[in-house]
């Protein structure tokens, strides 16, 4: 019962973070801050959901697979964000340091 409640808290928390990340993607002005929104929340979102699912599954083969996915995401998600930002930087895109009137990326 407690495990059930705990897992639902984790799942809902993960979902909430996902939504926040999505809003951030639209809200922020330029590539880098958008990426910040997507990258950070997404990593945690996926992890919370995986933990929640693992609690639901109990101790089984499924949990092991979930753990593998967890480790995989732990490595790839931040690296992907890094690669994206790196590519944008090399592509010549400068971070926008002040908020313009439109709030949109030029």
């Amino acid at each position, binding site marked *: 019962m407690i495990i059930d409640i705990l897992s639902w808290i984790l799942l809902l928390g993960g979902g909430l973070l996902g939504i926040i990340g999505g809003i951030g993607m639209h809200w922020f002005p330029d590539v880098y801050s958008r990426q910040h929104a997507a990258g950070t929340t997404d990593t945690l979102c996926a992890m919370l959901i995986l933990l929640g699912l693992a609690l639901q599954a109990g101790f089984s083969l499924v949990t092991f697979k979930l753990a593998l996915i967890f480790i*995989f995401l732990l*490595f*790839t998600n931040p*690296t992907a964000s*890094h*690669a994206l930002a*790196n*590519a944008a930087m*090399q592509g010549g895109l400068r971070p926008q340091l002040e908020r313009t009137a439109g709030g949109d990326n030029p």
Partner: protein
Amino acid sequence: MIEVFIDIILLSFIAVTAVAILRMTNLFAIIMLFGIFSFLSASLFAVMDAVDVAFTEAAVGAGISTVLMLATIALTKTQKEKVSVSHRHWLPLSVVIVTGAVLVYGTLDLPAFGDPEAPAQTHVAPYYIDKAVEETGLPNMVTSVLASYRGFDTLGEVVVVFTAGVAVLLLLGGKHRISDTGTNEIEKNEHSLILRVVAKFLIPLIIVFALYVQFHGDFGPGGGFQAGVILSAAIILYTLVFGLDAAERVIPPSILRILASLGVLIYTGVGIVTILLGGNYLNYSVLGDSKVAGQHLGILLVELGVGIAVFAVLLVIFLTFAGRGRP
């Protein structure tokens, strides 16, 4: 009930993505959306219990196709689609509406979605469900139908992949006539330490996973095709991080070409061996002491052929695309 709910949500997501693909003009965004479209379709396949299909669609649609499309827009240096005003839109639109109407008319008689009594479920399919496990000794019915009952289709499928490889080499394999294609993104990027370290950590894992998919395909979702795609993805990742020259040092293109041919030859060869042993083409039962053992061996061998051919061909295609932009 929950499945219907997920089904409807996914379908609406897919529909929105498709319309967005149609309406957008930025090609890069369209390709990304297409990747999303593929992933959503793969999820939907999984919800509809087609796990093997979901696996393949995720690997192909969201993986290989997307990579190739990105390579194409990098090579053609085209970011935006030009939408001309002069185009007459009523003709395509009316063709599409008529076609769609005919199709909807055709579905009115179809049995309801998920009906276990539908003709599709009651004629040929029950045989596979009842007998496949016993006759081939594999729990995954998709694998046994794929590699044994309809093994000839799968041979055709491998040949289609091989044909694509030959075709891409014919088109892009030669010397370039135009030299101003510029420097390639893949060559130019000097990747940071983080990427190199993480890639070195990930690539062996991906290769292990590919092998798992290859040999576990009899018991779970997966098989030669998916394994080939994943294995080639590992090398593609290597190419992206360490550069084309390094990748070609690891696997020279000439070896890849031989591997591609070898994969097809293994598959056709197994069939020829079965003829020589007195069976029909691709009748694996004659390969082993017992029928089931023969089936098992045959399926293992042809899946291996599929894996090798798909891996080599997809990699050849990718490297040919990537090499086209080399200065």
